[in-house]
Structure formats: structure tokens, C-alpha cells
């Protein structure tokens, strides 16, 4: 248990946060720009992909997931897996009942 105490003191410097923030702003700019171009069904795919990339940075750096134990990552994977089961089965069901 004492190893948890060590992680507690993990300090992320201000500069790193500013760097991540600039990246997030840049990705936001890309999303807005891309949405103005007519790419058909790809627009939503690109928008969601960029949103996922942004989330990855927020989760890992702002929320410190990168520095947490493996069990936290297992939790996240389980939660996302559950969500995608809901999403997948809803569309599966829909495609059969239509």
C-alpha cells in the first residue's frame, strides 16, 4: 500500500499543461475547419475521431490517468466496453426491426 503514497506526489509542471491545452485548442480549430468542408459521411467520422483524440489527452494528462495504476485503466476499458455494447446492440437491433 505504501507505493500508493509515492504516486500521490506526482507533480505535472504548468508548462506541460499549457502544451496540452494548446494542442487541444489546435484540435478544436481543426474540427471547426473540417466541418466547413463537405466530405459527406466522413465529416462525422473525422469529427468523432478528433473528439476521441482530445478526450485521450484530457484523460491522460488533465485527469492524470497516465500516472494511475493499471486497475484504473481496466475500469475505463470496462466502462467504455459496456458503453459500446449498448451502442452496438442498439444499432444491431435497429437494423433488424426496421
Amino acid at each position, binding site marked *: 500500500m505504501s507505493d*500508493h503514497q509515492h504516486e500521490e506526489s506526482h507533480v505535472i509542471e504548468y508548462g506541460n499543461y499549457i502544451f496540452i491545452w494548446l494542442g487541444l485548442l489546435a484540435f478544436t480549430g481543426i474540427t471547426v475547419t473540417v*466541418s466547413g468542408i463537405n466530405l459527406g459521411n466522413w465529416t462525422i467520422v473525422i469529427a*468523432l475521431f478528433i473528439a476521441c483524440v482530445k478526450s485521450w489527452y484530457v*484523460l491522460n494528462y*488533465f485527469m492524470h490517468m497516465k500516472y494511475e495504476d493499471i486497475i484504473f485503466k481496466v475500469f475505463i476499458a470496462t466502462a467504455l466496453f*459496456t*458503453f459500446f455494447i449498448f*451502442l452496438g446492440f*442498439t*444499432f444491431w437491433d435497429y437494423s433488424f426491426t426496421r
Partner: protein
Amino acid sequence: MSATDHAAVHHVHRDDYGSRMGMWLFLFTELILFGGLFIIYAVYRFVHQQEFHLAAQELNTTIGLINTIALLTSSMTAAMSITAMQKGNVRFSKALIWVTIGFAFVFMVNKYFEWGAKISHGIYPGSKDLLAKPEGEILYFGLYYVMTGLHTLHVIIGVIFFLFILRQIKQGKIASDRYVRLENSALYWHLVDLIWIFLFPLFYLIH
């Protein structure tokens, strides 16, 4: 005997690791809460693609963009307030929390004007103007009000959390050696940011 008693008093049981884990488990219930709404959105958008595109033209992308920047920046200042607290710079930590709350208000004021403009145009759940529109548009605006409304409720709760944290810092209950409550409040705030990262392209950027 008295020496061990003394030690026991000072060594209050604390489990920061477990506390953070509990917060994360709570955040997953939030994921499922919003996830359900995102699934409803996905199905109806799939069914009513044209109408969703048409309805989205009514939203102001600039306001959405300003709110995105406000939340991203507030997320950064919330994360930085932990760094400041870890370094023992309590004043700076408090200042950063206030900045975070400030951006939360920027977000809410924007939302107020945005909803206000929609409502004055007769677009609100159950309005005659809205009900006269095709089904897909009614669904779009229904989801818009429910999802951004629930999200804004989370912004308000986040602000209350941070005010509570500021009070506890003042009382000395949160300090450079015990700041897990600040960490957990920041985690909640980042979740609010995460949800907006998806709400913004899904409602504002359909062209």
C-alpha cells in the same frame, strides 16, 4: 499508552487512492448517463439525417466555439490548481480555482444568451413553432435542450464543488499534503469538459 493515543489522533485514517478510485467509479456512472443520451442521439440522427442537418443550422457555431475554449481553458486551470497545491503555493491554487469558476460563468452566460435567443424565436420543447416542424427537427431540439441542459447542470454542480473546495482550503482541511478533494473536484470538472468535447461537434458542427 498516551503516546500511542496521541499518534492515533494525528494519524487520521485517510485513503487518497481509494478516494480517487471511488470518484472514477462515480464518473463511469456519469458516462453511462450521458452515454444513453448519446445513443438516442445516434439512432435519431441516423434515422433523420437531413432534418438534423437542417436543424443544426439554427445553432450559433461561434457561441459553441467560445464555450469549447472556455471549458478547455478552465480544465487546464483546474489541473494547474492541483500542481500549485502540491507545490505548497496555496494562494496561486486558490486563484486558479477562481479562474476556473470564472470560465464556468462565461460558459453559463453564453448558454443563457444562446437558449434565450432560441426561446425568443419560439424554439423550445412543446412550443407551437417547434411542433410545426418535421419530426427530425423536433427530436434534434429536444435532444439539444436535454443534453446541453443536463451538461449545464453539471457545470453548476462543478462550480458548487469548487466553492466548497475554496472553503475547505480556507479552513485548512485542504493543504499541500492533503488535496484529494481538490483532485476529485477537478476530475469532475474534466468530465464536464469531456462531455462537451463530444456535444460540440455533434450539435454545432453538422453542416
